[in-house]
């Protein structure tokens, strides 16, 4: 009931007042929490962590249909339990925290970059580029968003995108930002060469084995291996396994897959153990105890 009231859609003045009220309540609660003694804070954190963990654990573990009305005639089988409907609204909490945190992140960036710029320290040009990029993208992005608010048809949206602000936004995003990202990604091509050179130097028996394996897998994925090198070997004979693509598939699907699964089993057990420690607030030893 209360959750439905909180998540009900609102518009106009009602939305503004609701947001303002929520911010004021949030600030008051935070101020009240700040005055609590450390011991009370600790128990509050422990209780919140336990309740939140319990909610997701029960939602996942309880079988579909638990405490749910039976399906009506013509309806399919029930796929959720009574907690499933709250997963999305509870997930909003994470989104709200992220939204608040992005503000903190921008403040941090501004603080780190303002000192070099104001005092002309070495590298002040980088800080200038940051502030220029931040302000220009913010102004253009918000301006475009404001124009798009009144759009109701596809033609109007097209007109906004082809306006000066729309073109400027595309220039900044598609013309600059995407290309810069692509440039950094392209560095991988060069780094893979230098990393492979170091990895495949024949320094030990293991390195030699790895180089031979990598060579087979590589040949099994390029035409020079599949078509020319062993392309003449016919399929369906006892010696067909000598085709590089078959050897490559076997390496990837048998020993490689076995090793990958072993690693994943270990990782998942680690995740369960750490999750359990966090959920039950046992992860408070050396690093978490003193400060709470």
């Amino acid at each position, binding site marked *: 009931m209360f959750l439905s009231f909180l998540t009900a859609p609102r518009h106009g003045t009602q939305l503004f007042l609701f947001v303002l009220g929520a911010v004021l309540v949030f600030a008051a609660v935070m101020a009240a929490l700040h005055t609590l003694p450390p011991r009370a804070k600790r128990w509050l954190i422990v209780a919140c962590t336990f309740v939140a963990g319990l909610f997701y654990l029960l939602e996942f573990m309880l079988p579909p249909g638990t405490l749910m009305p039976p399906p009506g005639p013509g309806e399919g089988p029930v796929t959720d339990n009574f907690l499933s409907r709250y997963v999305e609204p509870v997930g909003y909490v994470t989104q709200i*925290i992220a939204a608040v945190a992005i503000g903190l992140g921008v403040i941090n960036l501004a603080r780190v970059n303002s000192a070099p710029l104001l005092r002309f320290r070495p590298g002040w040009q980088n800080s200038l580029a940051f502030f220029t990029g931040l302000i220009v993208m913010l102004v253009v992005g918000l301006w475009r968003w404001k124009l798009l608010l009144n759009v109701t048809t596809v033609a109007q949206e097209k007109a906004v995108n082809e306006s000066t602000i729309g073109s400027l936004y595309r220039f900044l995003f598609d013309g600059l930002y995407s290309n810069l990202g692509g440039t950094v990604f392209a560095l991988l091509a060069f780094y893979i060469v230098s990393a*492979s050179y170091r990895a495949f130097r024949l320094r030990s028996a293991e390195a030699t084995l790895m180089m031979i394996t990598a060579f087979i897998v590589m040949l099994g994925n390029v035409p020079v291996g599949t078509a020319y090198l062993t392309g003449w070997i016919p399929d369906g004979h006892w010696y067909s396994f000598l085709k590089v693509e078959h050897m490559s598939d076997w390496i990837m699907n048998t020993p490689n897959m076995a090793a990958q699964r072993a690693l994943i089993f270990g990782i998942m057990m680690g995740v369960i153990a750490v999750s359990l420690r966090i959920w039950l607030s046992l992860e408070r030893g050396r690093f978490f105890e003193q400060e709470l």
Partner: protein
Amino acid sequence: MQHASLTIAILEALAAFIILYKILSAKRGRELFIRRIPGLAAIDEAIGRATEMGRPILFSPGLAGLDVTTLQALSIAAYVARMAARYNTRVIVPVMDPAVYPVAEEVIREAYAAEGRPELFNPDDIRFLSDRQFAYASGVVGIMNREKVAANFFFGYFYAESLILGEAGTQIGAIQVAGTPATTQLPFFIVSCDYTILAEEFYAATAYLSREPILLGSLVGQDWSKVALAVFIVVGVLLSTLLGPQSPVITALTAQLGGG
């Protein structure tokens, strides 16, 4: 929504029981042995080298949000920061997720305070760079070059930028230690870093570094859970091989346990 099948529920309950039992055993004072993990032992070596050179340390907690992997990475960051505070060495922590930024700041601040050196903590050394993958990667590479870092730690979840970070660190001659549960990125860290902590060793890091009984117990419980899981797999394979996959026993077990 996805819900646990009976198999998953039984296995998770079993794993949780074993881990909690071992934690309680460890709390009662039982001696537990864990093997040496060279990558984790190398953390102190890397901090020592940075201290000798008088240069900062860079610690990247990866690209994931505020999840189990990142929390584990931040626990390791706390250890690195405490050691660095002890030897008066700077630690720079660039973060990608804005929700991780305040947590990382608190963890590092508390680590300096725990060593009795709160004045050494510089909030500007915890930097939110960008929530975009390659913008973050180029930002980290920029910090490595400008600050001339002597040691790089890459702990957390990484994607394609792992090789960019590792190779950029190699080029500046930094000693590098990496640990990630991202199995697809492990080869890149192995070839570009001096030490790599493989997969589950990542989750053993806090137990290994702190030697806290609760964490050690959890680690041993985790290993016993793996043994139990392996026994299940072997029994399943043997039953399926001996009786045949279409036998009534296997069919009934599959139907009861919800497996495929």
